[in-house]
């Protein structure tokens, strides 16, 4: 009601210009929101699982992205609806927190909304539905803990980690060489991981791509690559046992920040200034040379004269290196970033066993490899592939795999994949539902049904009969009291996920259920949508 009356009976307006706003209230608002959420989930549903399809996304500038990563699809989708935006947020937070399962979480949320709609139609209050969902999610998460397995790996035995990463990669276009990529990802994560603290800093892994070659040529470099070449074409292309000076000051005369003017009014001043300038360049190079540096990496540019002096003194240099790369180089080589030439000391130099320039293809593409660094913990994954979209998609896939490996190092519990965890949870929630008195019981049962939708989508995408397959697996789980049965997407012949070696991280799954429930609760609680009309 946009109009109210005060105690004297005079009307006053609460919502201004109401005819220019669209407004939905009550059950209408909830239904509209639910249908928007469902629409988003429906788009992603076909991308789920190893046989999931990709989407082409065309950006406003006409660039094409081909992906099946849920978070990426939603991010680039140009969504306008508020609720749809919530779903986008949902997928993004899963991406930030876990890195994988971004599609699954949206599909889950969509299924929960669908079930909620039915309950609302029956006249159950949305808050009761939300509460029922909350209870159910708690049961599901506990159950997941119950069926999860700890699994052991060490730095020497990476096989289990590789298997998990392969599960993640198998749903991407790169599944042709998932073994290769999974090994690379695990090795990369292990080399930067702090196994005692169970922490992994993914910033130390740099993922670089260059078109050309084939996916199999993707490699892990124990070091850093920089997309730059030596500042002077005649500098040596390979340096062994390099001592690296990392500078953030340009090889140019200083530019004091205070305003000043140097006036030249006599010939003498002109001469001294000139000598000064020459000496300045000489000093800069000399200082680098004095501390024993054999390679200079600089964030800024060089003057031609400085460049030649560097070349002349046999001091190879790289210019215009980005800040992030500079930092990575500093971490990898154990050097310090030096902001002023005066502060250069031998201790601040970084060390690397080998620095080399490598060229690619027929064009003049060159990259600098810094390898065998003092601190070998920074690594680079260097992706090759047939075309730009392939590289981009591989980058996203590798990111997912890296996240999975990191999560396993943080918490080594796993649940089995292929929808088996969801089916098992569904059974547990269903069983628990009967114990609850009150209306929530319905909501909890609905939650169990919603859990079924993930394996259902998996079966559907794999070209199986969804209902038939799901009920078969479910009855098998109950009969044999074994939570490892799932959907046999790849037509292997068994649906025991333990034999197929398909597993996912426990925290990933738990997070999916929790996040999906939270968003659905939020959507259900909305009973009034006020938006300014478009024009």
């Amino acid at each position, binding site marked *: 009601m946009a109009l109210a009356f005060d105690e004297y009976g005079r009307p006053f307006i609460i919502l201004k210009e109401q005819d220019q706003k669209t407004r939905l209230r009550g059950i209408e608002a909830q239904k509209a929101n639910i249908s928007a959420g469902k629409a988003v989930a429906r788009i992603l549903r076909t991308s789920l699982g190893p046989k999931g399809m990709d989407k082409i996304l065309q950006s406003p500038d006409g660039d094409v992205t081909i992906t099946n990563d849920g978070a990426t699809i939603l991010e680039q989708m140009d969504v306008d609806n508020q609720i749809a935006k919530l779903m986008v947020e949902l997928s993004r937070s899963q991406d930030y927190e876990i890195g994988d399962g971004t599609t699954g979480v949206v599909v889950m949320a969509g299924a929960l909304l669908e079930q909620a709609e039915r309950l609302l139609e029956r006249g159950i209050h949305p808050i009761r539905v939300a509460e029922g969902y909350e209870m159910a999610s708690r049961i599901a998460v506990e159950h997941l803990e119950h069926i999860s397995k700890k699994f052991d790996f060490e730095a020497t035995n990476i096989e289990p980690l590789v298997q998990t990463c392969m599960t993640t990669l198998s749903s991407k276009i790169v599944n042709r060489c998932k073994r290769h990529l999974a090994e690379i990802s695990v090795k990369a994560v292990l080399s930067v991981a702090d196994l005692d603290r169970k922490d992994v800093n993914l910033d130390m892994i740099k993922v670089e791509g260059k078109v050309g070659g084939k996916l199999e040529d993707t490699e892990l470099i124990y070091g850093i690559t920089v997309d730059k070449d030596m500042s002077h074409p005649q500098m040596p292309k390979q340096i062994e046992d390099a001592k690296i000076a990392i500078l953030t000051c340009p090889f140019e005369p200083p530019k004091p920040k205070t305003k000043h003017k140097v006036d030249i009014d006599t010939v003498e001043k002109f001469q001294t200034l000139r000598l000064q300038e020459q000496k300045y360049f000489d000093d800069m190079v000399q200082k680098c040379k004095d501390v024993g540096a054999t390679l200079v990496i600089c964030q800024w540019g060089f003057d031609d004269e400085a460049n030649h002096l560097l070349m*002349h003194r046999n001091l190879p240099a790289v210019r215009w290196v980005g800040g992030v790369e500079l930092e990575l180089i500093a971490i990898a080589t154990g050097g310090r970033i030096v902001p002023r030439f005066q502060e250069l000391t031998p201790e601040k130099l970084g060390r690397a066993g080998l620095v080399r320039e490598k060229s690619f293809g027929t064009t003049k593409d060159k990259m600098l490899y810094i390898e065998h660094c003092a601190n070998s913990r920074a690594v680079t994954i260097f992706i090759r592939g047939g075309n730009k979209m392939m590289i981009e998609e591989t980058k996203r896939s590798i990111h997912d795999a890296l996240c999975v490996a990191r999560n396993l190092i943080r918490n080594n519990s796993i649940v089995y994949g292929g929808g088996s965890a969801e089916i098992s949870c569904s059974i547990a929630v269903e069983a628990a539902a009967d114990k609850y008195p009150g209306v929530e019981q319905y909501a909890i049962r609905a939650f169990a049904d919603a859990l079924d939708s993930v394996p259902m989508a998996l079966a559907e995408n794999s070209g199986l009969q969804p209902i038939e397959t799901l009920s078969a697996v479910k009855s098998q789980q109950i009969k044999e009291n074994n939570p490892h049965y799932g959907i046999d997407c790849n037509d292997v012949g068994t649906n025991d996920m333990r034999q197929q070696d398909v597993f996912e991280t426990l925290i990933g799954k738990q997070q999916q259920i929790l996040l999906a429930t939270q968003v659905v609760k939020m959507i259900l609680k909305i009973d009034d949508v006020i938006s300014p009309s478009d024009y």
Partner: protein
Amino acid sequence: MAIEKIFKDDASEEKGERARMASFVGAIAITDLVKTTLGPKGMDKILQSTGRGHGVTVTNDGATILKSLHIDNPAAKVLIDISKVQDDEVGDGTTSVVVLAGELLREAEKLVAAKIHPMTIISGYRMAAECARNALLQRVVDNKENAEKFKSDLMKIARTTLSSKILSQDKEHFAQLAVDAVMRLKGSTNLEAIQIIKKPGGSLMDSFLDEGFILDKKIGLGQPKRIENAKILVANTAMDTDKVKIYGARVRVDSMSKVAEIEGAEKEKMREKVQKIIAHGINCFVNRQLIYNFPEELFADAGVLAIEHADFDGIERLALVTGGEIASTFDNPESVKIGHCKLIEEIMIGEDKLIHFSGVEMGQACTIVLRGASHHVLDEAERSLHDALCVLSQTVNDTRVLLGGGWPEMVMAKEVDELARKTPGKKSHAIEAFSRALVAIPTIIADNAGLDSADLVAQLRAAHHKEGCNAGIDVISGSVGDMAELGISESFKVKQAVLLSATEAAEMILRVDEIITCAPRQREDRM
């Protein structure tokens, strides 16, 4: 309750069959576009740019054609991208890769219509591609050990590559040029060292390879036109007014005489600089930046040849060729490496004067001078030559060689067919389709040459049934011929790249079941 709109106004979404249809249509349209340029009898295209001047390009190079197209279809963009990558990676086969990918999609479309799931098609294609690659690997010829034979291999490859281009009339001549140029590189793939200079006039046959280095510049006035045993200093330094680089410095004077003094000092400074340069004991000075008249005069007085404003590539190449270093300071003459060459002279090509450095120290670099009737011919000739050079330089690194003329495709098709017969399940349809797509390439080559493709390909297939057959399409005589005798060869690396990236692209497009297009960014109307 109507479903709320979730996209922005102009954004559109296409799903399932429709999306797949859109990408098939787009990809096949692109394929049909470039298809007619394939093979020795392929036709050229005229491309007119929409930019200022409506520049016209005549070409038969797949990558060039596709690069200049404005395409809106996302699937078509994928194909353009693979052709571009093919160009960057191996330089040739840019049309073939698009045609193969297009044919794979055309076959896939039929399979999808027959209710076979795209994922099944993909896994079939993958098996087929692997099998085809192995088939090629078994049949490669590697003449790395035998230098003589390898050189003849290179010649054959160059001839085959050039035969589909505008240079085909003079392919013998140009193949020789390209092979000579690449052999000089001695295994490096740095094509920068080969300079191509285009000069309109004369005929294509007048093009030649020069062992030395040609700089497209004039010699300054009053300076020697011919220097023997030249000592060259290659520099990158300001020879106009040498600015004071210390920040904030400026000249402030209060009388005219002071101005003259400062000017004098400046001149003095320049003179000193020139003296220092001359003190290097050089008789030729090449600078990247401008040389003003004053220093030029000084150089002329000292009998030093000064060349100004050579572009950066020219400088780098010259430094590479003469073995000198690019200098920017001149205080230590003894430690600067100075380049040498036997003779510098001014030569005339057509109407232009060029500077010719001959007898250079490092034999790696060379210059190819292209002559031809018009700019369009020259541009296309350059592209063709570039293709040949790329392929050759890649072949020097990976010396495996295959026969050409549709032979590799037939070999692959045969092996893939075998595989299809052995594979149970729906995948075998996809594998069969792969082999059909491979056969489409010789079919198109024959079609483009105006031959009876159905008959020829059938003959070819029959011929390939025998082990160790070398049969391919001989476009000249219009029949099936022995490719080994005809000397038609291709580089293994190119064929492999074609096969792999075409499969990859087809796979990528097949996996798509939804296209979401964002609203195009609104451009400000400048009208």
